[in-house]
């Protein structure tokens, strides 16, 4: 077996084992072990470069604060998400798939390497500097271009070591870390013994005339934030090997914040000492030791530092090579390491990486700060410390993190905006401050805060929340909706915007509003409206203008559009067909504070554009509140968007009648039946009659598509669930009986019979009543159940069983609260109707809902039961059994 084959196999194995979750029993590292490993990673010759860079900015005391406190502050925050790596034994690159999507993660990986790998060019530069300086000390003059040859030789040797694979790298690391420690100790001893202590302690940099000390201090803090934040890439794979979250977290913090920072300070001491002795600030430990002690010490250190730089370059190529290999599985490890080598070589040829060290640091931080913010917010505030591991690993059938063809657009946009935000504050190349106030936060911290807040706010928008939280089932919010919460008044500043929105929504349909008996009627009063479609919510505010109002809304709307928006619009959340005493109290509060309370008493959209029976409770409520009762009968809303096909019909025309039917004086005098009679009379409607009478032409070719949901029974063969619809036709699947829907909403049979749609609908109801009376009615089917506990998310309740008979409903499901498979009973007399959907949100298909005080259960058919699940028939039975027709 060839050596080449061995290396490839080793790397394949490393990639495979390197991505698998590490089981708790396999974890190797306690706190000390992890600290040593991470410290080893953080100690490199670039620490000296960082130290000498800081010494050009601030005095020693401020330098200490920056190196230790700034580093620890940033690490304490951005290392927190490391907890997830430890908990699940996964590295950060797996988790990032949830933030960016699997394909987005590939792009982020490349960006991280692009901004991170210049560190290794710094190593090569240091190697070349050391060689040149020391040879110079021995009087050896080098030819032009020797510096480049030396730095490239570091790249070549480092790459060759990396290509030899895991074994060679392990040995390199074992030698490298002690060597670097040895050099560090030597630098500390020489640095502190060759110049008086107070020279270092009281050191202040010689600043140019226009330099601002405060700006320099901020740059010092920024450099330390950037220094620690850009090292996360290489450190991301270690925490998953830790036994406890605490050890992984603090090892990360102290590995960089204490050990790494110590070597930064050592570099600064060395630079200050060299400046004191020679008047020149250097970042080369070999030159310092040769100058401040003896050339022989310099020569010894040369060998150490030379090997250390080559070793660091090799380890870096290996780590990032493996990281790339785990992302780009089809490309060979060898090719990836060579690409990395070429990238470093290009940076060496450019030759200005040391000169632009601060710029490179800040550019790196421009990427890392938003990245760290996204991880932080995603972990703690959005996913609430839970991840769908199977989706993160893209196991078959687990696609929560696929997002948009593998890209999480929201995460990627936040990253890009966070990057841009840093540049708005500070130009790291030219060193120009664009915004001094934000600059005081440091570009890294400002970008961190900006990105984190942006991502969090975006996640509050319902559509975006649903997009990024496709893994809600892993950690759903189970808190029940607070029905008792006092509803705010409709936001006065929100109102003009709402009117504008409503106006825009109705404008294509030429809304006309007529008002009757409304002279002198001022809030508070009660409005009962007809309920046909979502258009009702646009028409009602316009009808009640200039007054503001409160509305009762099903909780589902809160989830769909967001609780904040719904509250601003003055909505009171409730669940349908439950005895909600909190709602009654809130209605009374609204009236008491002098507002309008709008109620849609049918509590469901009209299935075929006709009204439902109203119950006496609405009249009793009016008598209890002792305020005028106004009805709002809206016509055309159903025609514009019937519940059985939510596509908008542009030909529809809207009309609304707002009428005071009971005055404040009358409400106390009239009986419940009299009040109910007046309300029912005004809220009687037939949308197809309205269409025919007003000759409203709706000529969309697809105008009958979906009509088979409410008209499910064949008029000819009498079979249930027999109908299907397409274009402008509704047809029986069994006997072929077919009807054409004309442009005025009438159905025509082939024999010339004309059918009024509500007649067909009511004709079906009679058969259901008969089935119940004869004891033949029973539905017993498997269903898929989802619960809506609040305005935040649905909770999966698995596959259950749904039974409806003369006793009412019985629902079997996985109760997420008790974590048991349970059965809930809903007595027939407890509900006068139920909520139905024909194609929920235009994509989830037909469903019915049942509610308790703390949950609304959305009940969908399974593949097995989809042919016998018809919301209309279930509704007919519910209404009859609930006493609505008795």
């Amino acid at each position, binding site marked *: 077996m060839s050596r080449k084959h061995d290396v490839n196999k080793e790397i394949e194995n490393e990639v*495979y084992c390197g991505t*698998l*979750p590490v*089981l*708790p029993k396999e974890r190797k590292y306690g706190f000390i072990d992890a600290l040593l490993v991470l410290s080893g990673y953080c100690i490199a010759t670039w620490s000296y470069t960082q130290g000498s860079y800081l010494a050009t900015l601030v*005095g020693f*005391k*401020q330098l200490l*604060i*920056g190196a230790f*406190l*700034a580093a*620890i*502050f940033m690490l*304490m*925050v951005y290392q*927190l998400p490391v*907890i997830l790596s430890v*908990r*699940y*034994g996964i590295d950060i690159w797996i988790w990032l798939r949830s933030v960016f999507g699997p394909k987005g993660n590939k792009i982020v990986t490349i960006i991280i390497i692009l901004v991170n790998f210049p560190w290794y060019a710094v190593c090569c530069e240091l190697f070349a500097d050391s060689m040149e300086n020391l040879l110079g000390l021995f009087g050896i003059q080098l030819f032009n271009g020797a510096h480049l040859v030396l730095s490239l030789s570091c790249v070549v040797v480092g790459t060759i070591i990396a290509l030899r694979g895991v074994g060679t790298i392990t040995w390199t690391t074992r030698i490298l870390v002690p060597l670097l420690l040895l050099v560090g100790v030597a630098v500390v001893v020489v640095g502190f013994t060759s110049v008086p202590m107070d020279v270092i302690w009281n050191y202040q940099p010689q600043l140019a005339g226009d330099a601002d000390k*405060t700006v320099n*201090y901020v740059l010092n*803090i920024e450099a330390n934030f950037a220094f620690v934040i850009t090292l996360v890439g290489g450190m991301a794979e270690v925490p998953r090997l830790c*036994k*406890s*979250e*605490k050890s992984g*977290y603090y090892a990360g913090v102290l590995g960089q914040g204490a050990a790494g920072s110590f070597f930064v300070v050592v570099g600064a001491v060395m630079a200050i000492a060299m400046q004191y002795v020679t008047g020149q600030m250097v970042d080369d430990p070999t030159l310092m030791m040769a100058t401040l002690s003896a050339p022989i010490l310099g020569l010894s250190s040369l060998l150490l530092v030379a090997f250390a730089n080559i070793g660091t370059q090799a380890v870096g190529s290996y780590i990032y090579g493996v990281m790339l290999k785990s992302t780009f599985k089809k490309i060979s490890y060898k090719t990836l390491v060579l690409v990395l080598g070429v990238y470093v070589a290009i940076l060496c040829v450019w030759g200005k990486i040391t000169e632009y060290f601060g710029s490179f640091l800040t550019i790196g931080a421009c990427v890392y700060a938003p990245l760290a913010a996204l991880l932080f917010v995603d972990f703690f505030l959005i996913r609430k410390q839970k991840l769908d*591991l*199977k989706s993160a*690993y893209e*196991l*078959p059938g687990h696609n929560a993190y696929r997002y948009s063809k593998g890209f999480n657009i929201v995460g990627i946009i936040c990253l890009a905006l966070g990057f841009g935000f840093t540049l708005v504050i500070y130009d790291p190349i030219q060193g120009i401050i664009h915004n001094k106030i934000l600059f005081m936060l440091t570009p890294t911290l400002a970008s961190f805060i900006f990105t984190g807040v942006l991502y969090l706010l975006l996640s509050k928008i319902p559509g975006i929340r649903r997009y990024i939280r496709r893994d809600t089932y892993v950690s759903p919010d189970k808190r029940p909706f607070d029905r008792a919460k006092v509803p705010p008044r409709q936001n006065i500043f929100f109102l003009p915007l709402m009117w504008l929105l409503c106006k825009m929504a109705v404008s294509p349909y030429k809304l006309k509003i007529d008002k009757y008996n409304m002279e002198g009627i001022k809030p508070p009063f009660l409005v009962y409206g007809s309920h046909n479609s979502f258009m009702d919510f646009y028409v009602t505010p316009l009808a009640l203008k200039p007054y503001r109002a409160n509305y009762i809304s099903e909780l589902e709307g809160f989830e769909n559009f967001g609780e904040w928006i719904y509250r601003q619009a003055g909505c009171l959340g409730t669940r349908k067909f439950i005895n909600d005493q909190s709602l009654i109290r809130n209605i009374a509060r609204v009236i008491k504070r002098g507002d309008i309370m709008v109620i849609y008493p049918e509590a469901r959209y009209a299935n075929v554009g006709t009204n439902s029976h109203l119950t006496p409770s609405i009249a009793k409520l009016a008598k209890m509140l002792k305020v005028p009762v106004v009805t709002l009968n809206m016509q055309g809303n159903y025609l514009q968007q019937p519940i059985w096909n939510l596509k908008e019909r542009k030909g529809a025309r809207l009309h609304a009648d707002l009428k005071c039917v009971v005055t404040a004086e009358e409400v106390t005098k009239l009986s419940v039946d009299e009040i109910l009679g007046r309300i029912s009379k005004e809220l009687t409607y037939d949308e197809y009659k309205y269409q025919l009478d007003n000759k409203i032409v709706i000529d969309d070719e697809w105008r009958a598509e979906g009509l088979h949901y409410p008209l499910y029974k064949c008029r000819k063969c009498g079979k249930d669930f027999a109908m299907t619809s397409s274009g402008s036709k509704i047809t029986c699947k069994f006997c072929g009986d077919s009807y054409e829907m004309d442009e005025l909403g009438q159905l025509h049979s082939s024999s010339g019979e004309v059918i009024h749609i509500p007649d067909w609908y009511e004709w079906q109801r009679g058969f259901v009543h008969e089935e119940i009376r004869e004891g033949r009615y029973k539905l017993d089917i498997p269903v898929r159940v989802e619960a809506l506990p609040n305005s935040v998310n649905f909770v999966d309740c698995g596959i259950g069983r749904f039974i409806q008979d003369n006793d009412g409903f019985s629902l079997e499901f996985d109760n997420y609260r008790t974590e048991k498979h349970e059965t809930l009973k809903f007595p027939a007399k407890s509900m006068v109707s139920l909520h139905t959907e024909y194609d929920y949100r235009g994509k989830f298909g037909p469903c019915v809902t049942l509610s308790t005080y703390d949950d609304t259960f959305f009940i969908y058919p399974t593949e097995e039961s989809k042919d016998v699940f018809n919301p209309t028939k279930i509704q007919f039975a519910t209404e009859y059994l609930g006493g609505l027709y008795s």
Partner: protein
Amino acid sequence: METDKELESRIDEILIAEKENKLHRMTKRDYIIAAIITAISLLGIIGGFFL
């Protein structure tokens, strides 16, 4: 397929360990200590402006 099975069994094992509280989680006290250290570091950084 072998990889998927190995992966799935590992994930299940970790999730079971999590459900049974067998993982060494950060405690509330650990978070409080972390918050205190963070606050002290921040105060130190702010103090640095006055040096």
